[in-house]
């Protein structure tokens, strides 16, 4: 069972074969589920903590501060300490809250994020679900989270929570459109909804560069809409601190709050990963048409590193948005979507179709 850092196909294949040969088909499938589930759980927990730490450091740097410095070297253990604190906190529930829905809501939110993460291709062979409607599946699954938010806001029996949830509902429903349409533009270009095909298609150049203006426009629109989808500033109306104290999760504490918190960062990762995969070539190294030497040099860097470099790049841009801009108002968010992003997107798709038909692309 050789370990290849450049291609995980063999590794995952060997594990699969080993399981099938050693156990009954039922047991093999179950074990595989357990392994994959544990891997994702670990990844999400660790990456979530890392992202929280990164956000605090990035935010601090934008604001000329140092950020957490006390726990561990340069505050590296700060988020872990915070997480332990959250685990130990008392779970408080408003007296007249809807018990069942109140407890259910955080799980819906976090499960939706988990489902979406399944289709993300981290590296060759490191992808648990690779089927022909990958992008379609992702957009549909990621919008399940809004149900959790709506439930959380409604069941808390708090008006601030309710306003936050309603804002979030309106916002995510509208921006879902833009996310899907900008991805649709790229589907038209790539000719497939399967992630592996999309990544493979960028072997000679990322779609952001090969798709002319329409893919650039789609990328910008996707960044804006994606930021809105994750409820992050400047679109953080659902939890607008200065208006609604904490929005839909005002009444949550302890580990349930941690779920919302974690889900927000996983969603941030998913949006960035999709942006990286569809527009920036996923794990594919940076290649330029015929510069063979350059392409080979780029191939030395493992795909997993490429993937995370791109993801962090996109995450950084989204954080940059958050720490620079004032928040939009609820009606302006809808105006931005329906009056600006939607028409731009529709025109963009037409342009893209035209480009694909005339074979004008590189």
């Amino acid at each position, binding site marked *: 069972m050789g370990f290849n850092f450049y291609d995980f196909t063999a590794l995952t294949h060997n594990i699969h074969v080993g399981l099938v040969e050693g156990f009954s088909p039922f047991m093999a499938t179950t074990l595989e589920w357990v392994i994959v589930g544990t891997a994702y759980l670990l990844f999400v927990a660790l990456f979530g903590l890392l992202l929280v730490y990164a956000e605090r450091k990035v*935010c601090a740097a*934008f*604001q*000329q*501060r140092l950020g957490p410095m006390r726990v561990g070297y340069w505050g590296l253990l700060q988020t872990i300490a915070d997480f332990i604190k959250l685990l130990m906190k008392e779970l408080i529930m408003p007296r007249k809250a809807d018990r069942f829905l109140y407890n259910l809501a955080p799980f819906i939110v976090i499960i939706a994020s988990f489902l979406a993460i399944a289709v993300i291709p981290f590296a060759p062979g490191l992808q648990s679900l690779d089927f022909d409607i990958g992008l379609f599946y992702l957009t549909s699954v990621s919008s399940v989270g809004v149900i959790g938010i709506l439930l959380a806001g409604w069941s808390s029996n708090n*008006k*601030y929570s309710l*306003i936050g949830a309603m*804002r979030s509902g309106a916002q995510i429903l509208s921006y879902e459109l833009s996310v899907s349409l900008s991805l649709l533009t790229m589907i038209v270009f790539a000719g497939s909804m399967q992630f592996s095909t999309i990544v493979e298609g960028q072997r000679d150049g990322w779609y952001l560069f090969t798709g002319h203006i329409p893919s650039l426009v789609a990328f910008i629109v996707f960044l804006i809409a994606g930021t809105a989808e994750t409820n992050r*500033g*400047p679109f*953080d*109306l659902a939890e*607008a*601190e*200065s*208006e*609604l*104290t904490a929005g839909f999760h005002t009444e949550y504490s302890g580990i349930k709050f941690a779920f919302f918190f974690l889900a927000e960062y996983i969603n941030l990762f998913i949006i960035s990963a999709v942006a990286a995969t569809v527009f920036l070539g996923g794990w594919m190294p940076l290649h330029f048409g015929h510069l063979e030497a350059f392409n080979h040099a780029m191939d030395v860097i493992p795909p997993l590193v490429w993937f995370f470099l791109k993801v962090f790049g996109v995450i950084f841009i989204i954080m940059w948005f958050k*720490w*620079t*801009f*004032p*928040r*939009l*108002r*609820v*009606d*302006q968010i809808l105006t931005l979507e329906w009056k600006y992003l939607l028409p731009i997107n529709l025109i963009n798709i037409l342009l893209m179709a035209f480009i694909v038909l005339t074979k004008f692309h590189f």
Partner: protein
Amino acid sequence: MSEIKEIMFNSDRLATDEYLVNMGPQHPSTHGVLRMLVKLEGEKVLNIQPHIGYIHSGIEKMCEAISYPQIIHLTDRMDYLSAHMNNEAVALCVENALQVEVPERVKYIRTIMDELARLASHQLWWCVMGMDLGALTTFFYGLRDREMILDIFEETCGARLTVNYNLPGGVMFDIHPNFQKRVKDFITYFRKKLPEYDQLLTGNVIFRERTEGIGHLSLADAIAYGVTGPSGRASGFSNDLRKHQPYSAYPLVKFNEILDHRCDTLARYEVRMKEMHESLSIIEQLIDNIPEGDYAVKMKSVIKLPEGEFYQRVETARGEFGVYIVSDGKKNPYRVKFRSPGFSNLFALNNMAKGHKIADLVAIMSTLDLVIPDIDR
């Protein structure tokens, strides 16, 4: 429960779609313990009833038991962001009552300190305004620059916020030898930073969308509600006491009263931004010309005001601050009343925010620049 009844009987009954939300006393954007009972329909604000008194400290009652120099340090704690102007109001009131002429040097020092305090206050307002609108980074940039002014205060007055620098007849200490250099350094530094403020917030398309045409306060309403200071001047209400009833060294300097006739949140924002430039130019005119002399006139150890009533108005960062002293000839005042700018400004909120969204209510409240201890006293 009584609160709900009150709303039911005082305004129209709640319709089916309407609901009440308590904003405060613990709310991030009320900047203190102010409670507003907001009647909403969806996101639309229908009616606002401010409830104050959570930090009412009875300063007026306390003043009746202490002597005039001691009153000054209590005024620090009202509008803590314009502490120096409040101090000066009491000091001027006592000096006028006793017909004491303070040295020129004191007038210069007081005026420079006034403008520094105004700058510091406006800086804090700017960063909080950004924060209320969701741009958290502005908060740190504003505080970073405000630190320089607070250092100037600390070096000369000994305290950063509650300076207590004025005494009847002068100031507590002479200016520190480093004072002029520090102030000049600050002016050159801050002149460079102000364009950055504009780039970050003023020009930003989201910011302009959020503020333009929001929170209209007509000139007639501004006068009727007594909305003074930058908030009133943005409605065209010319009320700058530095111009109309000049005190200290204000008659000696050239500056413009910033007026705006657009009456909205953006106007109130821009008036304050322009006032920062004016303040810088006022300090620049004075800082090199501070005359030599005493920093205080010798007053009696026990100051007794003649029998009568005395009123002194000064312009603080928030508007008109008035001190009304009734004296019966003893060393303690018979009655002291402070006319605080925030008190009058707050109650115009309902008029301004009606019909706008919750987010606008936060923005409007931010441009009124309320300091709650100033309202409650």
